[in-house]
């Protein structure tokens, strides 16, 4: 069947900000869909509030709206654009829910917009657990025993049927939000209450636990002629009980006989047919009882997903691209396999390697939060590795995680028997290491299997690695001849891990290995286990006999990606790497991407000319370089990950493009940086460095409180805090020294009520051009990544802006920046202080590019490759014509127990952008995009530290003027009364309260209460003040959607 010609224009919904459970995999999918549909000649309209995505680039779609993905905004866009169809399956749960809302409000019907990819009935049947369970029974598939409940009482009653432990799954939530596993009635009551709250329809499923069962996922694709294929079967190493997003997973499924696999395959097709997904990709999850083989269906997602992105990367079969084309009428056999170019897409990939995915966690950011894993996803990123065996792939994945692990070494302190038993039985972020530790201590494999529920085969694979490690202890390098070295490398041992085991330096192992001629080859991900030739250079390393890299002799540049997403380093950096690939490709330079994050656009096999799916360690990168021999390597676009490799690469003689590693060091090294500022006559807050606790406490006396504490060389403000007293300082220092890993800890004088300003600039080593000057809404002291910011500045005096620009240019010149640079300033008392300089792309780069219409990352890549700014026509700052605001999105709901207070340690996972004619309009949109529904009326509850009370008067006045009743907590009310500003008291259960401000440790109770009741809650006065301006704007009328062309044309 050919494509549909009755459709001319299609609107695609994106997934909005990066949150836990919904990350850049939807940018990858959405970009593929946009590209595929445009190539078919359709006009594509895109809506997504996330500016850090490639899909919101002006080139990706015919019209791009960086607007909130919620039905009212989308309605206005549909009214403007009048597309024929809407594709809701590329933007995760957010897009599906938005599409359902548009249907329920009659918008799609009124405007004659057809849903393609998945119909309403199919979405409802898949997402509504009650309908889903009925559908499964209808086709004879089993599900775990389960009862739907709408109250805690019903849940407790249900437990009598399903027994304990009982699993709670809220209906219609993302990544299991609000769910959990209850061991007893008390836990069930708590989890059920939270789950009912979290579900948009107030419903939960109380389900029989299939804890410890084997867990599998099948990625199915179906076309409208009812042809179905399985793209990939994924097996979870962590059995049922750990959310698949938090599980170590492996592809293909390894522990099934063909009979079991075919049964699951047929069940997957039965599910997609019964649910009624007519075209596109779906994910079906199964659990299998390891003792009897009994199989149950767990759930189904009628859309592309994190798993489908993983499956695409794992097999070379681009599910989203295919799904988009199937949605407009093609059948699978009409689409080609782009990797082999000789076979059709109607086949099932055969793979001759093993793919391992490991989740990356960020519990250290959320003190007080439980680290136990369950049905609710908590990881913030993931890494994928490809090897010819499970062991090789697993060890590559572990080192790709960048958690300091070189392999299976012990993590953290030595545990006693009880501690280790708990670490095995209660899945936490590092359980795999506990398994290795137990095996190392000689625990029987059977005991490890029964405590963890991990399949005996996987346990034995780990046991084998541990045995080899133990055999290596105390050996000398000369004992490792070429045969042994090759055998070790074939098992995936990194040079660094071998060095640890042999008590040597990594470089010594590498040198020895290379002298023995033991080098990896690069093999192609070809969808067909080498049955057909592959023209697509999508490669991974392995220690085999025949290299398939076939490098070209063209001029080429290597781009190092950002590795797994983590808090502080996410999609923004992938965006920059992708832009570099685009820009260099346009300039005729061959691009080579190295990255290991399966969610991203950068690891799509057609983003760069050549893709190496490899861990970003010195060893792995050097081996790619040895084969490719690029002209140079770009390290400044992928965040800290590649930057950390710069020195090692340079030492190995690899040319680093752009800013020199030495200049990077000047910016990172506190002493050298201070000297530079001194030379330039620039100020920074009084500060000191210390290498011991005692030294820090003494120096703190000299500086005076409050102080900011921070370890050097860390990401996202890790272990940063503001100490107001000697006692507080002592507490924070312990953690700071731990995080600093033997680097000094810095203490700065904290500038009270300072305005923070972020500047991105481009430099070619001679000329410097400002990219954008952004004023933060939250005061200095809140991590820049967690603070909202406005471009252009909304309150900063023009003279100060000019001074900031002057200082930025001076810094860029002095450092010899070639490429991008980001500077953070604080403005206090009319004076400008430099807080820090990052001679690399910052997370603000995509936002600035979207707000100003200038592609900073592309320009930076061109500059690094040798062009001058003048040659590129970039001579002056491009000032935005509209106001734009970037707002951070925080994951506190995922971490019950953690205090949702903003501070110097970054905690946000993603961001949104809003644009409008005024700051107020832009901020209002940004709030809506971040999921904050600001009230137009009601009561405002306020609680701040007494010393901050004076700052409340203006905002309280503004809110009263808008008709709000303003109430304060006892301490705050007293403080205000003392200032002659009488105010009502917050009382009881926050009745009628629609907005809150709860700042400082004293307001934790109000913060928790407001968050629990889903009342928008600011944690800074500045935030509330901006909120009040937004509310005023919202009361004046609806916020008109604006296409990117209108914002920055």
């Amino acid at each position, binding site marked *: 069947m050919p494509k549909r010609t009755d459709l001319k224009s299609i609107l695609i919904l994106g997934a909005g900000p990066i949150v836990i459970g919904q990350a850049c995999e939807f940018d990858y999918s959405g970009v593929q869909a946009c590209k595929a549909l445009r190539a078919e000649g359709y006009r594509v309209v895109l809506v997504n509030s996330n500016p850090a995505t490639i899909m919101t680039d002006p080139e990706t779609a015919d019209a791009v709206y960086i607007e909130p993905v919620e039905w009212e905004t989308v309605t206005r866009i549909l009214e403007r654009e009048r597309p024929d169809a809407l594709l809701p399956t590329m933007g995760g749960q957010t897009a599906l829910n938005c599409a359902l809302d548009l249907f329920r409000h009659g918008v799609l019907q009124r405007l004659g917009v057809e849903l393609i990819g998945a119909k309403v009935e199919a979405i409802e049947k898949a997402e509504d657990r009650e309908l889903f369970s009925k559908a499964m029974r209808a086709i004879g598939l089993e599900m775990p025993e389960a009862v739907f409940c709408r109250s805690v009482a019903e849940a407790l009653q249900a437990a009598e049927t399903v027994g304990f432990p009982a699993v709670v799954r809220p209906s219609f939530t993302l990544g299991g939000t609000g769910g959990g596993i209850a061991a007893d009635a008390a836990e069930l009551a708590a989890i059920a209450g939270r789950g009912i709250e979290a579900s948009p329809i107030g419903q939960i499923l109380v389900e029989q636990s299939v804890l410890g069962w084997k867990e599998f996922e099948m990625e199915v694709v179906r076309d409208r002629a009812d042809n179905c294929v399985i793209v990939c079967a994924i097996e979870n190493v962590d059995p049922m009980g750990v959310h698949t997003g938090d599980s170590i997973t492996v592809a293909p499924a390894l522990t099934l006989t063909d009979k079991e696999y*075919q049964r699951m395959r047929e069940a997957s097709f039965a599910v997609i047919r019964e649910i009624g997904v007519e075209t596109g990709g779906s994910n079906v999850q199964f659990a299998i009882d390891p003792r009897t083989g009994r199989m149950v269906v767990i759930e189904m997602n009628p859309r592309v997903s994190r798993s489908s992105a993983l499956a695409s990367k794992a097999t070379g079969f681009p599910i989203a691209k295919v799904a988009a084309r199937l949605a407009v009428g093609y059948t699978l056999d009409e689409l080609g396999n782009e990797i082999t170019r000789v076979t059709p897409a109607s*086949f099932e990939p055969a793979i001759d390697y093993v793919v391992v995915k490991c989740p990356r966690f960020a519990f250290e950011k959320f003190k007080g939060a439980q680290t136990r894993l369950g049905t609710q996803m908590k990881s913030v990123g993931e890494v994928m590795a490809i090897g010819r065996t499970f062991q090789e792939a697993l060890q590559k994945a572990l080192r790709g995680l960048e958690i300091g692990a070189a392999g299976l070494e012990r993590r953290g302190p030595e545990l006693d028997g009880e501690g280790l038993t708990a670490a095995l039985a209660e899945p936490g972020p590092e359980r795999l290491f506990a398994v290795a530790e137990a095996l190392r201590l000689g625990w029987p494999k059977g005991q490890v299997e029964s405590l963890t529920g991990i399949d005996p085969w996987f346990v034995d694979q780990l046991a084998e690695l541990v045995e080899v490690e133990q055999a290596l202890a105390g050996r000398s390098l000369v004992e490792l001849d070429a045969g042994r070295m090759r055998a070790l490398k074939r098992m995936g041992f990194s040079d660094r891990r071998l060095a640890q085991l042999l008590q040597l330096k990594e470089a010594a192992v590498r040198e020895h290995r290379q002298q023995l001629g033991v080098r990896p080859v690069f093999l192609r991900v070809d969808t067909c286990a080498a049955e057909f030739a592959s023209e697509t250079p999508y490669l991974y390393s392995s220690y085999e006999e025949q290299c398939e890299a076939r490098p070209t002799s063209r001029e080429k540049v290597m781009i190092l990606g950002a590795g797994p997403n983590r808090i502080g380093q996410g999609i923004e950096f992938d965006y920059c790497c992708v832009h570099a690939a685009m820009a260099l490709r346009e300039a005729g330079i061959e691009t080579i991407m190295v990255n290991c994050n399966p969610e991203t656009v950068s690891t799509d096999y057609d983003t760069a000319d050549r893709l190496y799916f490899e861990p970003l360690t010195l060893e792995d990168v050097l081996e790619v370089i040895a084969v490719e021999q690029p002209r140079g390597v770009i390290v400044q676009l992928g965040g800290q990950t590649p930057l950390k490799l710069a020195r090692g690469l340079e030492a190995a003689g690899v040319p680093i493009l752009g800013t020199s590693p030495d200049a990077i060091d000047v910016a990172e090294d506190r002493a050298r940086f201070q000297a530079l500022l001194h030379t330039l006559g620039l100020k920074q807050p009084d500060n000191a460095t210390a290498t011991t606790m005692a030294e820090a406490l003494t120096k703190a006396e000299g500086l005076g409180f409050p102080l900011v504490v921070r370890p050097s060389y860390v990401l996202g403000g890790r272990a940063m805090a503001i100490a107001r007293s000697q006692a507080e300082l002592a507490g924070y220092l312990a953690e700071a020294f731990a995080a600093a890993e033997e680097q000094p800890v810095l203490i700065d004088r904290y500038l009270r009520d300072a305005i923070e300003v972020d500047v991105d600039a481009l430099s070619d080593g001679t000329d410097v051009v400002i990219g954008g000057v952004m004023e933060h809404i939250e005061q200095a002291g809140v991590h820049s990544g967690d603070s909202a910011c406005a471009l252009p500045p909304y309150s900063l005096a023009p003279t100060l802006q000019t001074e900031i620009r002057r200082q930025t240019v001076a810094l860029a010149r002095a450092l010899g920046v070639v490429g991008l640079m980001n500077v953070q300033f604080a403005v206090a008392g009319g004076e400008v202080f430099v807080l820090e300089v990052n001679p690399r792309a910052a997370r603000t780069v995509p936002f600035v590019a979207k707000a100003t219409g200038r592609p900073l990352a592309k320009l930076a890549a061109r500059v690094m490759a040798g062009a001058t700014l003048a040659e590129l026509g970039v001579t002056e700052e491009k000032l935005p014509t509209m106001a734009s605001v970037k707002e951070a999105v925080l994951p506190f709901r995922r971490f019950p127990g953690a205090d949702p207070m903003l501070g110097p340690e970054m905690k946000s996972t993603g961001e949104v952008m809003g644009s409008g004619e005024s700051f107020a309009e832009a901020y209002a949109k940004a709030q809506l995009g971040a999921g904050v529904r600001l009230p137009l009326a009601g009561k405002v509850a306020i609680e701040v530290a007494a010393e901050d009370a004076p700052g409340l008067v203006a905002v309280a006045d503004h809110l009263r003027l808008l008709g709000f009743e303003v109430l304060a907590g006892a301490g705050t009310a007293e403080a205000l009364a003392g200032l002659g500003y009488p105010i009502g008291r917050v009382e009881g259960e926050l009745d009628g309260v629609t907005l809150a401000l709860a700042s400082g440790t004293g307001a934790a109770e109000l913060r928790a209460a407001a968050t629990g009741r889903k009342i928008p809650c600011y944690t800074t006065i500045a935030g509330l003040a901006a909120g009040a301006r937004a509310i005023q704007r919202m009361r004046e009328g609806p916020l008109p959607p604006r296409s990117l062309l209108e914002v920055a044309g």
Partner: protein
Amino acid sequence: MAAALSRIDPPSTPGLLALADGTLFRGRALGAHGRTCGEVVFNTAMTGYQEVVSDPSYHQQIVTLTAAHVGVVGVNADDEEGRGPQVAGLVVRDAPRMFASWRGRESLGAYLQRAGVVAVADIDTRRLTHLLRERGAMAGCVAAGEAARDEAGCVAAARAFPGLQGAALAEAVSVPEPAGWTAGSVRWLEGHVREGMSDAAGPEGHVREGMSPGAAGHVVAFDFGIKRNILRLLVDRGLRVTVVPAATTASQALALRPDGIFLSNGPGDPEPLQAQQAAIRELVAAGLPVFGICLGHQLLCLALGARTFKMKFGHHGANHPVRELASGRVLITSQNHGFAADPATLPAALRATHVSLFDGSLQGVELADRPVFSFQGHPEASPGPRELAGLFDRFAREVSAGRTTKGV
């Protein structure tokens, strides 16, 4: 040190694959020691190594499996497709030291060793597959233990292997005498009693009563190297099955008063099997429903006047898309053949029903005026997708229908 580092030391029992072109692949022994020769082919199926290894169609073939790990779930009695391993040799990348499955009863290595099948592990099977793809299926010699140390001898042995072109092998793997088959599919976990090929079924697997014997009619199945799952699927459909030797003549077959004739898969070149082609011609002329699979399909085509040829490296895998020409639908199929019928030579009466979407080769035919049809791939799956199981339903319908008209 040798003991402690055994996992990374050179194998104490080496393994070798020597190709006729002189290429050597060194690894370690997995199955029995000794050496055997055969045609080296690769199979890309990701599950079902036991079904592959026990498939009699692989007689005189050395199979390399492209899957990364082979042996993870061990072997069990239910997944046998023949009487123990049938391949001449097996070549794999990684054979893990332990297996784990609720169904597993024995390790792959022990199973191969017990049957005297030579196998090697730790081979770069991707390089081997690449080579076979480029140069075509090739004669090879697989050796394990002391035999693997004589590399030159292995190459010479590989060169001496005559190849499969012109090789008539069906009779070598066929049953010696006609025998009833009564076992249906194992219905684990579907609420049914375990039946059929259980551990207790005896070495032949021919001994137990199936579920509904013979209700739908009697099928005489020519055993050219038949896969057990074909028999199970016939029994599942209520057919009484008599398995007959490959040398059975038409009159011998007709003497069994069949309601339908099944022509099985099997090893080797179909072309020299002249007697079988003659028998098939007579059986078709007798008006009986005929269903052929793989070699059976090729023999039917030859019997009716088409020609066959040897393919470069054949089709061996579980992911092959095939178009069903009548409906236009695409079916994912299991494949294992090195010869194929040439569609250009089909007589007018024999029309193509299925075509491979990988290379356009002929995958199925039928006679327009008679209930006679065949399929090149493996509708019985095992391993692989079961999407063509409908062909067995069609055959059962034809058999029953023929029976009704005959008034039996």
